[in-house]
């Protein structure tokens, strides 16, 4: 099944017309929910993700508290209607894993030592899925955390690189993810270049891995600029509205 689908032409043109290093269209909007402390709505190609942040607030039950720092509890959830066949609702093996790796990635950027015994809740709801939802979720979570006014060292950002028909490309689409050779989601802290999340599905040689990783880091910096613009845009429009 794998080899009989042509995902990329010899000229380097992909199924949706992108080049090997092109990112899908990204739209980010901060502060969309009123009840949450911070929120973000993100569209990344065909992905639609909504993130709500609550906290810092006291962690319950008590035994989950850390007396020295705050804990970060991210919850990644896919809506039943987010995929073609209905997804059975509720946490499954995959979403529990993604929740865990995203929690750990966010823990590294949030200044958790300022809030002992507290928790920061990050709810990531995937409304529409088209490959790369964990990267989209983590990118949106970064914006929602800023919107919640939570102290952070940096704004986390993520993107996937991968291999399709033997060629290393950036930001896999749905068919490329399903029928490609490898998928490599990477999250970094763009200011320091620290890796926050690194997973791999499929097979890559060492050379291909290095190539894909460098491409993903480059992509992260590009997405990071879109993130920053979205936040600054949101809060500058408040100021601009008044000047009219």
């Amino acid at each position, binding site marked *: 099944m794998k080899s009989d689908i042509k995902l990329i032409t010899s000229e380097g043109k992909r199924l949706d017309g992108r080049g090997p290093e092109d990112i899908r269209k990204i739209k980010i909007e901060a502060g969309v929910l009123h009840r949450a*402390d*911070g929120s973000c709505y993100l569209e990344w190609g065909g992905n639609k993700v909504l993130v709500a942040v609550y*906290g*810092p*607030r*006291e962690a319950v039950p008590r035994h989950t508290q850390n*007396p020295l720092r705050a804990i970060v509890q991210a919850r990644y959830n896919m809506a039943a209607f987010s995929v073609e066949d209905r997804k059975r609702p509720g946490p499954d093996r995959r979403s529990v894993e993604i929740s865990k790796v995203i929690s750990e990635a966010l823990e590294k950027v949030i*200044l958790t030592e300022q*809030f*002992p*015994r*507290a928790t920061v809740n990050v709810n990531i709801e995937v409304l529409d899925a088209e490959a790369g939802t964990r990267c989209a979720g983590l990118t949106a979570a970064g914006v929602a955390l*800023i*919107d*919640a*006014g*939570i*102290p*952070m*060292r*940096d*704004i986390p950002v993520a993107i996937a690189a991968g291999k399709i028909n033997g060629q290393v490309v950036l930001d896999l689409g749905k068919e490329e993810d399903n029928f490609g050779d490898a998928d490599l989601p990477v999250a970094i*802290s*763009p*200011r320091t270049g620290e890796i926050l999340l690194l997973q791999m599905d499929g097979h890559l040689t060492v050379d291909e891995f290095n190539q894909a990783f460098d491409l993903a880091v480059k992509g992260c910096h590009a997405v990071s600029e879109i993130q*920053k613009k979205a*936040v*600054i845009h949101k*809060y*500058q429009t*408040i*100021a*601009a*509205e*008044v*000047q009219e």
Partner: protein
Amino acid sequence: MPNEGRQIVIPGQILGDMPAFKPGRGTFVENKKIYAERLGVMNIQDNFINVIPLKGRYEPIVGDVVIGVVEEASTSNWMVDINAPYPALLHVHEVPWEIEFADTEKYLNTGDAILAKVLSVDESKKLQITLNDRNLFKLKGGHIIEFEPSIYRRIMGKQYSMIEIIQKYTRCRIKVGKNGRIWLDGDAEGIAKVLQAISKIESEAATFGLTDRIEELLKKDAKDVR
């Protein structure tokens, strides 16, 4: 003129170098460089770079006057929600009444509002508040509304100018807590006006000349002014 000199900063943004500037509130230092740790407005005062937050939870500081809502009455203390990440403890010794053992519910019960002061904040952020001061008391009746704690200074105005204007035009009794809560008592019309003014301050907090615009807003339909 997007912000008339108020620069909006985001976490991880570089604000200055160490020897020339000193790190103030809302910043952190890495390799002798000062970075913003949260979304806010940059402010430089006496070479200290501060980030005044635009959003975020209330962080209790000793001496702050806050509005609390009693959550639970125990035999010798109350747990009070002061809108911080943690509940605050109010001990029977810290109230102006003589209370016999286990008689706490007669004085303050679940749901009651108080104007209190933060007494102590310890290492693990355990909070204690007090009612032992002449301008602290139980708030009877009235309404409580919440606002973004970071704009407390804007709601008060320079030398309380903003809050005095609101009080003057609406004829409401108003108490503002640093924890992002306002208690107000008055007629329905006045309360509606206060709500209108507060939501305007909240949405335009990052701009200049706000006090004048609020006065304009309140003046428009003010009938009798004291």
